[in-house]
């Protein structure tokens, strides 16, 4: 769409756009605070991956999802989880490794999940969470729940074989499964065209029999539309694939200064800012800046609170260490110390 058509259109779908903007701004602000937590030494985990620049993928696809849908994410999944309704306090606390976190501080940023929101888990293995959606989609289909299951992953995972096995199964069995590749152009220090010659990513899914598209992530409305097509298609039995083109604004991890890419490239990439773009669309369509500022301020306060919540939360107690290896009704694994006590007691 050209700019004029877009303004007209966004006026029409102004309320959608506002909702998307709000979600995207929440994601962006949350990610800012995560970085802050990290710098304050409050985050557990040496690895922390921010999704700044990718907000439209999280929010646009999420808009096509319903309660009951399930999903898995990769290691850069804060935005998706938030867009699906996560409590930012519990998220931040989990990232901080606190007992008030979603996973009681055991998982951290890369292993966060919430069954009640259909989040079957983030994953620190590139591609590791992909096949689970085939299983979840199979269950949804069999139980006729009408739910879809969506795997979110990065462009790097396009080179993991398990993706093709999973897409093939989804197609073969007509499952309500969707594969969403958040193509931020980089996998650590490897640009997508340094990882593959087949950079038209959706073609790879199409050849396996999936509905497949690529969408530019600049405009969240475009993403939402494409996602609606793909997700609705999956709901009615044709699994789908969506590549969302965007840019990883910062380093791979919080400390990575991306020396492997040029300032020019970064400037160009960051110019494609879906949050700013939505803000401008809203303004262009007549929304007063003061209103937008008010929204931002509210979000800022909400996210500030997550840091306090986290800093005030307790570390998990040491005796939780042996819990949840197996189900609660099962004996816990015997601690090494207990074993040693018994062995050494003989003397």
């Amino acid at each position: 769409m050209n700019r004029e058509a877009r303004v007209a259109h966004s006026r029409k779908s102004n309320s959608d756009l506002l909702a998307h903007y709000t979600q995207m701004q929440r994601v962006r602000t949350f990610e800012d605070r995560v970085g802050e937590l990290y710098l304050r030494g409050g985050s557990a985990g040496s690895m922390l991956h921010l999704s700044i620049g990718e907000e439209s993928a999280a929010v646009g696809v999420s808009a096509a999802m319903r309660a009951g849908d399930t999903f898995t994410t990769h290691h850069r999944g804060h935005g998706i989880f938030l867009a699906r309704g996560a409590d930012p306090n519990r998220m931040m606390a989990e990232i901080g490794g606190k007992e008030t976190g979603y996973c009681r501080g055991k998982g951290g940023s890369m292993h966060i999940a919430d069954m009640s929101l259909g989040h079957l888990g983030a994953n620190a293995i590139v591609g590791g969470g992909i096949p689970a959606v085939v299983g979840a989609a199979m269950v949804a289909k069999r139980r006729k729940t009408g739910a879809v299951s969506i795997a979110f992953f990065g462009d790097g995972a396009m080179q993991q074989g398990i993706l093709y096995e999973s897409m093939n199964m989804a197609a073969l069995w007509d499952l309500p499964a969707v594969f969403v590749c958040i193509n931020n152009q980089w996998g650590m220090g490897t640009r997508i065209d340094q990882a593959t010659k087949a950079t038209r990513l959706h073609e790879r899914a199409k050849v396996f029999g999936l509905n497949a598209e690529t969408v530019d992530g600049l405009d969240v409305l475009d993403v939402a539309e494409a996602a609606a097509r793909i997700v609705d298609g999956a709901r009615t039995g044709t699994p789908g694939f969506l590549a969302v083109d965007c840019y990883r604004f910062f380093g791979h991890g919080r400390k990575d200064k991306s020396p492997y890419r040029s300032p020019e490239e970064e400037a160009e990439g960051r110019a494609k800012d879906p949050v700013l773009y939505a803000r401008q669309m809203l303004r262009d369509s007549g929304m007063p800046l003061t209103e937008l500022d008010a929204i931002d301020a509210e979000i800022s306060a909400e996210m500030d609170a997550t840091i306090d919540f986290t800093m005030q939360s307790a570390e998990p107690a040491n005796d939780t260490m042996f819990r949840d290896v197996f189900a609660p009704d099962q004996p816990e694994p015997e601690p090494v110390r207990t074993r040693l006590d018994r062995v050494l007691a003989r003397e």
Partner: protein
Amino acid sequence: MPKLAYRDALKQALVDAMREDPDIFIIGEEVGRYGGAYGVTKGLIEEFGAERLVDTPISEPAIIGTAVGAAMAGMRPVAELMYVDFIGMTMDQLCNQAAKIRYMFGGQIGVPMVLRTQGGTGRSAGAQHSQSLEAYVMHTPGLRLAMPGTVYDAYHLLRQALLQPDPVVFIEHKSLYAMTEEVDLSVPPPAWGKAVVRREGRDMVIVTYSRQVHHVMQAAETLSQAGIEVTVIDLRTLNPLDFETIRAEVEKVGRAMVVSEGAMTAGVAAELAARITEECFDYLEDPVVRVAGEDIPISVSVELEKNSVPGPALIEDTVRRMVA
């Protein structure tokens, strides 16, 4: 009492469990129309249909990953790996995902799946189809591990595995499928995780599992004729490990040997020997001796294959020398 084959006991367990629990389904290569490479699921598709006997493409990593997702979504998959030798393609999904999900996610959810597979030597199937890889599984926190050696256990351990809240790796032995026994399946089984003392003796405790139970029992018969009486413990499950039964027997007898078909170094036999030594040291007259698979790949040659793993003669000979 009726005679039943190990293969058919497994099938019966699947049938009975699937009738009771509509959430159980089987997923793997050739499990449906073909009936399983070793015939265990033959005929099941007629009763349960293709929805519950899901024939898959040859995509082992995704088979296990699909089962993980289905288990998280509330069903109870039985994922079949045609040979345990293929586990190497799936260990990320098995060990990084299935085994850790409950823990990483703070106890929110478990992965109640069974990974059915088979291993071991005896069919001259070569280096990539004859391995005993249970040590990989036993070493991985979060996985249960069952290895039935008898027809009765083939049935009951599989039934019990299908009630577990956590992932169970269930390894059958390829040389046992055709073995028949007179069994009364209606006799209530020991609790999940309990070992069984198959024979009692005063001279030696032998701890073993899976097919080696038969090699050990055969050696025990011969030894008995020579006046040497051994206790034989069939572990049945390696996780949970019923150490209390081992302890009780070893403390009575004061001498122990472990027999495993897996490669000796850093294998199951090492764990059992180390554990027995730690816990029963003051009762031991001799070191716990390991009789296990050689630290070599398995040859396709029938003779070399046979000589790569423990057999009744080696077991018998070792006991004689220890007891002498």
